[in-house]
């Protein structure tokens, strides 16, 4: 009997951090413009110590303004989506649940479209509007998904699916009847795009995103013992003293916020929220006290690697990240499914 200890969690996370670090280095290294590792290290180092003027020309822009923000965004988005996916799989008691199943991404997309129509050039408007759309969808699905005043997994799932289809239909309608040129970008956004978001104020931006991630993921983590029990049965968990209704509400809100966050800044990158928790379960077990942090790290790694691939496979053409995660994701998922049959 080897119960999970904080030490094991720390070791596993340290290992995954290491992998993430390597992935980050690889991602910094590769791209349409070749840069040697030595140049990267120099550029990074000089940036950290504040010597901007000494950097080799052109490298500063590419490393600090294009690749590094992209990597950091990828880490954030990957971590958010995987944590949300793990949460939803427990909340909905369904291993096929992914962060988009409750319609949050469709709501965000609708918000983004409306902002593109109304104010195409306003900085940061798309992200804010997308998040507002996500928030509205979260609230709507919550109210639809209740039964007897409490969140019920089956009802929630149905409500989410209905919301997702309805919102998608509206989006389709808008995209075909309105002929604004800015809607062209929507197709990209819908497939996931880490590239062109470079906000006017990166510091505030990243700090805000990071803060939201920590709060929401932390909330989910705090319920991980509860989730372990809920996964053996809701009634059983109640009898063991779990406040099931409160836990479900917390997980619902936190996971939806994480999803809304990720989708607002980078569109709907698929498969991450579905696959990574399963992969981590296969590797490290189903205990949510370990699964939540490993999913976060695993998701970050996956998105960074997928984005690197997307940028470099048919350079200089950039494929959308969502396509890469799907191409990599489908075979892995099939493999997982066949293994389950054992």
């Amino acid at each position, binding site marked *: 009997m080897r119960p999970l*200890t*904080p*030490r094991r*969690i*720390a070791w596993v*996370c*340290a290992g995954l*951090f290491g992998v993430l670090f390597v992935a980050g280095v690889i991602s910094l290294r590769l*791209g*349409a*413009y070749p840069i040697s590792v030595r140049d990267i290290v120099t550029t990074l180092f000089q*940036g*950290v110590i*504040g010597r*901007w*003027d000494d*950097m080799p*020309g*052109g490298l*500063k*822009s*590419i490393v*600090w*303004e*294009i*690749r*590094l*923000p992209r990597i*950091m965004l990828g*880490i954030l988005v990957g971590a958010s989506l995987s944590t949300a996916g793990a949460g939803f799989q427990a909340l909905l008691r369904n291993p096929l649940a992914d962060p988009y199943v409750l319609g949050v991404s469709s709501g965000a997309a609708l918000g983004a479209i409306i902002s593109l129509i109304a104010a195409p*050039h306003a*900085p940061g408007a798309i992200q804010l509007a997308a998040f507002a759309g996500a928030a509205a969808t979260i609230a709507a699905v919550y109210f639809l998904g209740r039964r007897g005043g409490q969140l019920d997994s089956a009802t929630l799932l149905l409500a989410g699916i209905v919301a997702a289809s309805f919102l998608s239909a509206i989006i389709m309608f808008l995209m*075909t*009847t309105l*002929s604004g*040129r*800015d809607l*062209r*970008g929507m197709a*990209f956004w819908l497939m996931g*795009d880490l*590239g*062109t*978001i*470079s906000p*006017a*104020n*990166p*510091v505030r*931006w*990243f*700090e805000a995103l*990071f803060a939201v991630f*920590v709060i929401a993921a932390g909330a989910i983590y705090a319920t991980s013992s509860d989730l372990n029990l809920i996964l053996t049965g809701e009634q059983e968990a109640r009898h063991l003293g779990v406040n099931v209704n409160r836990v479900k509400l917390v997980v619902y809100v936190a996971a939806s916020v994480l999803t809304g966050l990720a989708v607002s800044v980078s569109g709907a990158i698929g498969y991450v929220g579905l696959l990574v928790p399963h992969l981590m379960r296969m590797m490290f077990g189903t205990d949510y006290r370990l699964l939540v942090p490993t999913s976060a790290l695993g998701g970050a790694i996956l998105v960074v690697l997928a984005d690197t691939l997307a*940028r470099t496979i048919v*350079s*200089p*053409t*950039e494929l*959308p990240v969502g396509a890469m995660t799907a191409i990599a994701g489908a075979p892995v998922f099939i493999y997982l499914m066949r293994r389950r049959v054992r």
Partner: protein
Amino acid sequence: MRAWHRGFIAAAAVGALIASAPRVVAQTGAQNESRVYGDPGVAPTHPLEVTDDVGRRVKLPFELKRIVTLAPNLTETIYALGLGDRLVADTNYCDTPPAAKAKAHVGDPQNPSLEAIVALQPDLVLATTSINRVATADALERLGIAVYTTAGDTQTVLQMIDSIARLADLIGAGQQGAEVIGQMRQRLDTLHARLADRPMVHVLFVVSEPPLITIGQNTFIADALRWAGAESVVLSKQNWPQLSIEEVVRLQPEYIVFSEGHAGAAVEELAELRSRPVWRELDAVEMGHVVDVSEEAVRPSPGLVDAIEQLAREVHPEVFSRKNEIQDVESAWAGLKPAPTTGCGGLSPCAR
């Protein structure tokens, strides 16, 4: 408990490290405010600030030696203005003129590689509303690169020509620009005069199919058709409306126009349509009035005028008799343009 503490401290340290990275990233944003592009070694030349076609303020250096274009029509325009040697890169889709294919590529118009663009250290990047995304232009602007966006979705051909004129002025090719535009205007005026007393022919312009996508009234293509003496039968306010075949039956255009641009395309299309159930009963198909023009028809570039002339020949064959063509050749020798191809008219497709 001790393991907890260690774990927490480690996590906090890493978290602090990650959190400090954004701070460092931000420095670069602040530094770039006053520069034109990221190379610190070159002192910026005195910039000229202009407003582009979408209202963005652009700082243009006086010397524009390195230009990157993000759309095929812009590449074509640059070459037409005689600035082809200043073009350092274009997109994968830029194939007119053929020399453009040999240039370095920065990716697709929709999602070009920002890195590749930055690495080229361009003086100016040209984008257009008809094919590039706002996000791309925003990102380039924030990276300190001058981006000029032209209005590609104009409503009339003359507006499009004005846009080219404006661009030519701003990038220091005013004289070349005036010549090119002068020719374009002259050819259009000549055509207009020729077709002055002819009735407009009703056409259906097919952008792509299936599903059948055509053009709306507010596009420059619809206007281009009018210059060619043709009127689009589709009265939609949408730019790219999708029609059902029933609607086409109701509209009964006199001609169906495709823009495939390769030899024999009209014949192929006619054969194809003749084999389809409802299409084959359309008046236009029965009479063989299926026409193909070059791809330039949908592109806001100097080549549009060629396409307009080509279409005019197809749908008003009676105007372009041999006598009139000799006049054309003479006036072409007087100008700087090569002679328009001859031998077209009626049912035979134009060889191009």
